[in-house]
């Protein structure tokens, strides 16, 4: 796999750290794993840490937007943090940050959701 994912749970918040490359191939597995976390552990919010994500294409935008909508149904939120310039370019092009909040690091993202870290 070119993508590795790390899931850490704090209360009803899921911290998801991605490392490597997120394309269509990886997006299929990410979607399944992320949805399982939401369902099994009654997750309401997700903090998506993209510090070590080096490559992403439109498939990544799709899977992130898909989970944003899913969490919104649960009255939850998604916060993205620590993004590199290449990935940021795609978010800017798609206007994703008009709807999804951005924080500079995981600590601030946790604080913004009311979880002390």
């Amino acid at each position, binding site marked *: 796999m070119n993508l590795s994912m790390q899931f850490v749970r704090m209360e009803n918040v899921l911290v998801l750290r991605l490392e490597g490359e997120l*394309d*269509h*191939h990886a*997006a299929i597995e990410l979607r399944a794993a992320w949805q399982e976390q939401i369902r099994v552990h009654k997750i309401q919010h997700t903090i998506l840490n993209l510090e070590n994500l080096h490559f992403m*294409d*439109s*498939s990544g935008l799709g899977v992130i937007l898909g989970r944003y909508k899913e969490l919104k149904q649960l009255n939850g939120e998604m916060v993205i943090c620590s993004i590199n310039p290449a990935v940021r370019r*795609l978010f800017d092009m798609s206007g994703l940050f008009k709807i999804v909040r951005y924080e500079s690091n995981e600590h601030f993202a946790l604080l913004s959701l009311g979880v002390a870290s």
Partner: protein
Amino acid sequence: MNNEMNITFKSISANEAFARISVAAFVSSLDPTLEEINEIKTVVSEAVTNAIIHGYEENPHQTIAITCTLSEDNLTVIIEDFGLGINNIDLAKQPLYTSKPELERSGMGFTIMENFMDKVEIHSVPDEGTKVTMVKEFKKSKTLCN
């Protein structure tokens, strides 16, 4: 430098990474910047993913072909499938338009290709296939030797 390469591979999603890495390796003689490499990898990934998802509707037994040509500082990449084709190319190019929202597509593929490359041409015939031709001019040598 003038050079050319051709690859064909099966329409399986694991080949998306193979395709973008191959094209990135091919252009390495131009001494590209990290940004240029990222742009090339992204657009190849977009076009190959489109061939797999839309052209072949995820049938893994079909073929995708890539031809790359280097001429001086210009790269031409042609990515071709022999699948369903596109009925309305103008509509397909619209930002956020997708024919497959149920597959969580965002409709940004062609917009990204047009942003990252200097020229993008789409040739498509329904039930025959789609050929995307993209051109990028690489910045002249980053370091002057004299």
